[in-house]
């Protein structure tokens, strides 16, 4: 590598002035200098006392424990997982409909995907939380708030997961289905036993990524009326921030999100790297 580099360097005709390598080094030095200056300016101008007071009140943060974990984080995880499971099942169904040889199945699945990918998740939360109860008085979504959140998150994520799963199924070589059919598998049985297991290996990284997105989207529960016991991280943080007139709870809630999303993101990248190797 470096040998090749130096030969090229040597072979390059000498021009007057700075060499390309020197220019690059200089430009990098300038960028570092600007960065350091910006940080220094921020450090000098910021009102550190006020900021610490607003965002990092140790005793206030301490009071949030263990409830922010045992209640808020727990609810966030519950909402996310139930939404993910519902979305995965629905997404699987929609993906298979999208690939069906029966026209109407394909159309219904296509329309579903377009609608639910095109709408803001917030609108769907409002729809499930407000519009449905108004439109169908008396009908209860089973599971109360948990059911509503699972439904809203599931409806949104199913559209994305359906497209991911469909792409995964189509990435399995055609010969796999032909081999299975020639052994006497029915189309459905071949899908279940041969194609989908292979497709799932392909889509585990993007589905894990979807889990991260859902984890964040569960904060939209904020817009549903929830009881004290049903609060998740965002609402818990906000409520506490307004009662104490201090931003520390928001910061702590944010750290709780990162506690989950950063490791999950790391896992996704590892999985993607592994999938890339396998090819």
């Amino acid at each position, binding site marked *: 590598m470096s040998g090749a580099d130096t030969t090229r360097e040597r072979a390059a005709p000498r021009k007057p002035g700075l060499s390309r390598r020197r220019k690059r080094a200089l430009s990098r030095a300038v960028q570092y200098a600007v960065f350091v200056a910006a940080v220094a300016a921020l450090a000098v101008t910021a009102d550190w006392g006020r900021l610490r007071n607003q965002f990092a009140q140790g005793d206030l943060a301490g009071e949030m424990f263990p409830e922010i974990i045992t209640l808020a984080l727990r609810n966030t995880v519950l909402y996310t997982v139930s939404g993910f499971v519902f979305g995965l099942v629905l997404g699987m169904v929609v993906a298979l409909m999208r690939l069906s040889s029966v026209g109407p199945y394909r159309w219904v699945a296509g329309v579903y995907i377009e609608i639910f990918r095109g709408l803001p998740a917030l609108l769907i939360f409002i729809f499930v939380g407000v519009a449905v109860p108004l439109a169908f008085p008396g009908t209860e979504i089973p599971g109360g708030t948990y059911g509503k959140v699972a439904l809203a998150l599931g409806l949104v994520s199913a559209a994305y997961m359906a497209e991911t799963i469909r792409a995964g199924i189509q990435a399995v070589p055609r010969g796999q289905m032909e*081999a299975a059919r020639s052994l006497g*598998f029915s189309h459905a049985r071949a899908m279940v036993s041969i194609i989908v297991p292979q497709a799932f290996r392909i889509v585990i990284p993007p589905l894990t990524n979807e889990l991260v997105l859902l984890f964040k989207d569960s904060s939209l529960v904020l817009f549903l009326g929830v009881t004290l016991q049903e609060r998740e991280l965002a609402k818990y943080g906000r409520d506490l921030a307004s009662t104490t007139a201090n931003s520390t709870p928001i910061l702590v809630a944010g750290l709780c999100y990162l506690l989950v999303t950063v490791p999950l993101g790391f896992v996704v990248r590892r999985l993607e790297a592994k999938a890339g190797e396998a090819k």
Partner: protein
Amino acid sequence: MSTRTRTADTARTADTVPEIEISGLHKSFGDNHVLRGIDLEIGTGEVVCVIGPSGSGKSTLLRCVNLLEEPTGGRVVVGGTELTDPDVDIDAVRRRIGMVFQQFNLFPHLTVTENLTLPQRRVLRRDKAEAARVAAENLQRVGLAEKADAYPSSLSGGQQQRVAIARALAMGPSVMLFDEPTSALDPELVGDVLAVMRMLADEGMTMMVVTHEMTFAREVADRVVFMDGGVVVEDGTPGQVIGSPAHERTRHFLSRLLDPAMAEVEEGRGGPGPG
């Protein structure tokens, strides 16, 4: 290993029930009229090699025999069951027809043994022990018992193709279809696969083999069928079709194929059996 050498009059077409009967078979892909009226009978225990230029419809013909392609016209009867009858249980018919593909198509997420047991369990509803026993027996037959727990990706192409043959055999088929089973293999791996196919032929399996391996066709086949442009141009013993072709198209095809290929065969490309 004994090679079976047959003269023209030992070919068993006339005196046995046909295992495969194809009559007036047509297949079009849109405007592309690929098969233009194929008539072919293959007797029980017969080995028929199908040769012909690329694009002449050999794969399509083979795939019509187990309905991987839906014929647009004509009849296909296998083991007395008419496949082209809309009421036929195609999955049941396919269990009796093994198929081996050019690209092996092993299931990459399963071990070699699982590749053999899963179809038996799911399709034939065999119990675990029985499926495992049949799997081991067939891996033994193709000489790969020691690869039972390997994943397909760790095997050579020749080994993968032999596993694919074993997987088809584990279903207990009465007919085996081979679509250029050695075309994707490195030359030095071709012999092992051909040896397994020779063994099957010796055991009396009914076989329909699309191949460019002329040595194999000459030595193992009871009949050779030459296809061109979606029709059967010539159909006879290897001696007739390869040895003294009656049609100009056959001669042209063979001269183009044999000249370079024969040299390779002579230089040790052939199977382990006497050449």
